[in-house]
Structures are given as structure tokens and as C-alpha cells.
């Protein structure tokens, strides 16, 4: 599978997961499980490239990292708003 097809596939998986009212953030492992025909390391590289292109975003708890679609589910600022300065 070439890189572009793999990237497309990753986006499809992400949209499918998020679309059905499901998860907006998923582990790399889940991506790898959904695309068993590709090498896990290639999936990692493709997903990281998608992040650089702005089509995916990271979400980290500090101990582990998940992938999400920008604008779907909780954003990077985790529902926290900066207090307005008076």
C-alpha cells in the first residue's frame, strides 16, 4: 500500500469512528487494528505526517497520546477557556 492510500485509509477510519457518535480520539493501536494489511510502523509514519499536514491532531494525557480529527470532539484546550481579562 502506498503512503497516500494509507493516509486516505487512516482518515476514513477516523471519520468512521467519529461519525457514528463514537470516539473522537483514538489510540494509534486502534488505527493499526483497523488497517491490518499495513505495517504498524508505516501507519505510525503516515499518521504523524497527517498531523504535520494539519489533517489530524494529537491529544495527550501526559502518559499516552491519542489521535483525533481537528474540530471534532474535545479540542486541544480540553474545554477550558482562558478567563477574560478585565
Amino acid at each position, binding site marked *: 500500500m502506498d503512503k497516500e492510500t494509507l493516509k486516505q485509509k487512516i482518515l476514513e477510519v477516523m471519520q468512521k469512528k467519529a461519525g457514528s457518535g463514537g470516539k473522537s480520539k483514538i*489510540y*494509534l*493501536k*486502534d488505527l*493499526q487494528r483497523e488497517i491490518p494489511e499495513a505495517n*504498524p*510502523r508505516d501507519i*505510525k509514519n503516515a499518521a*504523524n505526517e497527517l*498531523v*504535520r499536514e494539519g489533517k489530524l491532531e*494529537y*491529544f*495527550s*494525557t*501526559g*502518559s*499516552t*497520546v491519542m489521535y483525533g480529527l481537528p474540530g471534532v470532539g*474535545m*479540542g*486541544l*484546550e*480540553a474545554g*477550558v477557556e*482562558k*478567563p477574560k481579562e478585565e
Partner: protein
Amino acid sequence: MGEVKKHDTPMMDELKSGPWPSFVDDIYNYAEKHKKQACFDILGQMELSYKNKETHWKHGGIVGVFGYGGGVIGRYSDQQDKFPAIWAFHTVRVNQPAAKWYHSSALRKLCDLWDHRGSGIMNLHGSTGDIILLGTVTEQLEYIFYDLTHQLKMDLGGSGSNLRTPECCMGMSRCEWSCIDTQDITYELTMHFQDELHRPAFPYKFKIKVSGCPNDCVAAIARADFSIIGTWRDDIKIDQEAVRAYVAGELKPNAGAHSDRDWGPFDIKKEVIDLCPTKCMFWDEGQKKLYINNKECNRCMHCINVMPEALRPGDDRGAVILMGAKAPILEGAQLSTVIVPFMRLEPPYDNLKNLLYKVWDYWMENGKNRERLGETIQRVGLNRFIVDVLGLKPLPQHVKEPRSNPYIFWKEEEVEGGWTRDVAEFRKRHPA
């Protein structure tokens, strides 16, 4: 800068009364000198946490700067009205130099950077080994990253499901026991695995720690998924003259480390020979000579620690590779277990890197979400991990004691005649 407001913190203030310098003093001194509201707020929130007996931090979200999947840990206060200066208080992990040697000017620059762009509070070093810069807001992150990389020539460390910043003891830079060049190995691994360090690749965290000798000053055996510990294969070098000097009281045991109290005269039998875990040492009182049965020695370092001038590690040096240590989340804490009893480590360390790739390929494919390598090994079985995954041979060194933890199990095809062979027939030929 506007007025700063100090919160009422009776419980925090009580911490100042102990015998040691207190972080409360430090933070207040700094906050007052630099008029930093964030520092007052953080102590205010901590007081509240002490009172409510629960945390007021939320974390998750921010992961790093553009293109990085780690290095920043997002942290927010859930008491934003009370403590607005710490509404966001992100942690930045900075990759420390190998063995943590700094030029004072680098530290000064780092402090200036953090005074300017952060809360001013930092922690050298976190248990991963990184420099931890505590408390900044999202808008500052890219500037911090730019300043770190362009002015200080430092980089962010690992967090999340990344390779965490590799760490090592001071190794050959100061310690004469170091059997491997820990700093070089750490530097080489850090540079070689930049992608793994900055971009999440794994089911969970992965730590590499390098200790120069079995004293294991960075606790690699307790904390690293992949522990590299220096060791030697030949005999401990003995200077009999120096041994006699220790026995006669001319040299201080442990290089004088316990000289604050009078422990009485040095007793080689009580303090060295009897404490040897494998009982492989003998002190001949008549001949005044020390004998070591090196075949039995398990390199615990005790005798070398007690008599550093008399005993030294041998010359045939390399490292033992252990895997699987972790803290207790699932199943309880685990120490690393020996996988490769001896590996010679010379630049560019291709043997080490190949082993790492093998482990990662398997773990990336078979590890579950948030499963450390140690847990994967436990799940598939150490025997299968060693034999099937890594393609290594089971060795006596994999077993702590014969017949007490026999985790090397045979597969049917490895046994002559399989499971169905006639044992009575076999015993006819081999009666004992």
C-alpha cells in the same frame, strides 16, 4: 505589572517549619522578588487541595509544539475564578544532556528563559531524567521551543506514547567502575531515535536507561523498559597489597563514606566475605590473601564498593540487557529481567539498535493499548518472548535459581519423541 495577591495558606506555611529547606519558602521568595502571581496562585491552589484532599488540576490536551507529539503536558486549573494566573500551567519537558552535565551559562540562560516565559518554577530533574519546566500558558509554547532550540541548543524530551528521553548515570565522565560509555550510548540512542522520541509510535511509554556498572545509579533495573547495565565477564581484579591495607586499617572502607560515626575496626569477614550473596569469596587469615571464585560471582559490586582501591571490575567489559521494568498500574511493580546476559557495546551500537527494533516491532504489533513492554512479556510468557520473538536461546542466566522459576518450557517439536513418547521405554535405556 499589576498588584500581586498572596493567598492565605496556613497549611503550606506549616511546611516551612521542618528541618530542611522548603519548596514553600523557595516559591514565596521567588514570587515576592519577581512579583509572579502564578507562584502565589499555585500555593493557594495547593492549600485548597490540602483542605479538600483532592486535586484541582485537570490534564490532557496540549502535547507539544508544531510537529512534535510530546514534550509538553497540558495542565489546567479547575479553580479558574480563584486562581486565574494558573488557568493553564503546562509542563515542558526538556531533554537533558547525557549524565546531566551543564555549563553554568546554559543554566543561567535556561533560568532567564523560564523567568520570562514561564512561572519560574523548575524541577531538575524529573524521574525520566528531563529538566522539568513547570507552568506556562499555551501562547508561550512555540516561543519557548524556538528559544530552546535556537539559543540554548536544547530540545524537548519525550512524553506520552513516545520513546521517553533516554537517561544514563555519569559513567566514564567521573566513575572508574563504569564498564561502558553510558553518555555516548545515551547520546547515540537519543539522536538515532529522534522520530520515536518526538512522534508517538508505541502502545504506551517506553523508557531506556543506561547504567555503567551493576550499582545501577539511574535505577535502570527498576524503571526502564529497556535497561542497559554495564558488567564484565572475566575476573575481578585484586590488588592483594591494598586488601591487606584495608584489613590493617590503613585504608578507609567504602572510601570513607561511613566515617561520620565510629563503626569500629574494619572486619573483612563480617563486612565483605559473609555478605557476598553467592559466598564466592574467601579471606585466608594465615596467608593474608583474598580469593574470589569468579565463576560464582554475580557482579553485585558489594566487595568492590567496600574496598575500591583493592578490587576492580574485570577488563572484558560490556553490558547486560534487561527488559520490562514498570511501576504498579497493572499487576504491581516489576523489575527488569535479564534478556541478553552479555553484549559488547561499541559505537555505532548496531547490535543494540537491532535488538530494540526487534522488540518494538513485536510490541507495536502485539502490545495492547496502554500496555508496557513488561506486561506484554508477562502476557505472552518470557520463554516465548525470548525464543520466538527475539530468536534468542534460553540461557542459564535467564533463570534466577535452577528449578525454582523454570519459565523455559519446551514445545512439543523440541522434545525428542514429542509428548507421546514411551517413558518406560526411555527409562529402560536411561535407568537413573
